[in-house]
């Protein structure tokens, strides 16, 4: 089967500082991939490269046969296929929850308003926030904001969802709400790429786990291979600190 995302030999440097070195991975449709590793190992940059927020220096990223590393890249077409959720939620503070969700479908996909709002209401129900439709982001807790942010990305009907440390700013309780939402998404067959420090969650939902350090993929495998029987010294050292 043709993989949905093919990353081959991607290099990225900020100035003279290399952030990603020779990254290659493939992600199949419906797969849930988790990227773990210490801070500054380039995990977030890799996600941003996948949806074209950060241009790569060399190498190739194919998302559903769109080449991201192409000067003539149609960024808007790429971003309609790729949803991303950030650590700091980044909701639009001047719009209510439901407006946040319906905005992009109305203005970017030119959907009729009624249809967009109906879909937004359905998505709010999916993330269990129906009663907060008319609340502004400032009136929502971190976990609620993050679930709205997930619904906002889903409203664009993406083929793949990227999650960039989405629970890092949340307390253990609200973390759970968000993680359950992501788990349900993965169970429904949504292709997910997660950058996360939640090892328990990664071992539960991931099909593949990638351990990165210093801009390289140090080790990759199934959750059992990585968490139970890591072969690499560096992986074992990292996991012994966090598990």
């Amino acid at each position, binding site marked *: 089967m043709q993989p949905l995302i093919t990353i081959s030999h991607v290099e990225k440097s900020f100035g003279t500082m290399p952030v990603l070195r020779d990254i290659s991975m493939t992600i199949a449709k419906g797969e849930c991939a988790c990227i773990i590793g210490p801070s500054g190992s380039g995990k977030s940059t890799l996600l941003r490269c996948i949806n074209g927020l950060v241009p790569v220096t060399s190498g190739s990223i194919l998302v559903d046969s769109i080449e991201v590393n192409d000067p003539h890249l149609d960024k808007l077409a790429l971003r309609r296929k790729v*949803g*991303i959720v950030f650590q700091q939620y*980044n909701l*639009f503070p*001047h719009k209510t929850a439901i407006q946040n969700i319906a905005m*992009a479908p109305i203005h970017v996909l030119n959907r009729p308003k009624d249809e967009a709002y109906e879909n937004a209401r359905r998505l709010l129900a999916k993330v269990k926030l129906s009663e907060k439709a008319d609340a502004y982001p400032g009136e929502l807790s971190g976990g609620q904001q993050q679930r709205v942010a997930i619904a906002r*990305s889903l409203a*664009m009907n993406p083929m793949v969802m990227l999650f960039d440390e989405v629970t890092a700013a949340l307390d253990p309780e609200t973390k759970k709400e968000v993680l359950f939402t992501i788990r349900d998404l993965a169970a429904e067959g949504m292709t997910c790429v997660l950058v996360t420090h939640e090892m328990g969650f990664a071992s539960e939902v991931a099909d593949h786990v990638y351990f990165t350090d210093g801009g390289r993929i140090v080790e990759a495998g199934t959750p059992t291979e990585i968490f139970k029987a890591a072969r690499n010294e560096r992986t074992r050292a990292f996991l012994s600190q966090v598990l």
Partner: protein
Amino acid sequence: MRPVQSSSLPVLLTPNRTARDPLPSLTAIIQSRLLFVSLLGTFFISCGISAAYSAAGAQPSLSILDVLLKWAPLVFGGFLFNIAVSIASMALGTASGLLLGLGQISPSRPISKTSWFLTQFFRNSPWLVLLFFAMFLLPFDLKIGSVTVPLPAWFKAIIGLALPVMANVAEIVRGGIKSIPLSQWESAESLAFSRRQILWQIILPQAFKRMIPPWMNLYAILTMATTLISVVGIQDSMTLTKAALVAEGRLDLYLPFYMMLLLMFFAYCYPIARLTQSLESRVAVKF
């Protein structure tokens, strides 16, 4: 640049209030403001001092208050003209300043560089010099085909004052836009919004709220600066006050007359300053 704070305005007396306060009602401003009372007091004391002068000079003439009342309508008419000029300059300056501010953040380098240069040039020039430039560089009339449109002096003065306003508005717009975190751009971009959509639907609606206080601040400064047009020979409240004083030819009238003019501007600008202050604290609390 951070948005201009209103603390540069001569607003006194109220301690820093952090709570969200209601917009001050007009009566509240007049009743509770010691400043206003003391200004009025100064006005009448100056009348008194001048009266003492004139008693010493033994001039058989009208009392100071009678003279003031005689000329007040004329001076007030001139004052209304100042207000009209300030509104027109502000409108012109805001429209062009908005374009210039947006130009500064344009992705096109020639546009952003030109906008930056124009902004810096007009922002760092004395207002009076710009006014002279406008008065003497603009032609007396414009020939558009066979039609000749005269450019009256007041119109040129409006343009002259609009130039520094434009540059300051440009900075307010740029500062307002820059004050919105980059993460807002990033998340909008990732939702496939185009640059124009991001600017007009996500960034500017948030930035406008922050631009309003410094914009009002600028308007109050402009209103006070409109008296500069008297220097280039336009009949405003300042010119008329001077003319009235010449006509009366009494030294004892100088203080009360200029005090009256000051009071008119104060009564107009002070509420604006108060409103700016309370709007500012609202915006501050919101974030």
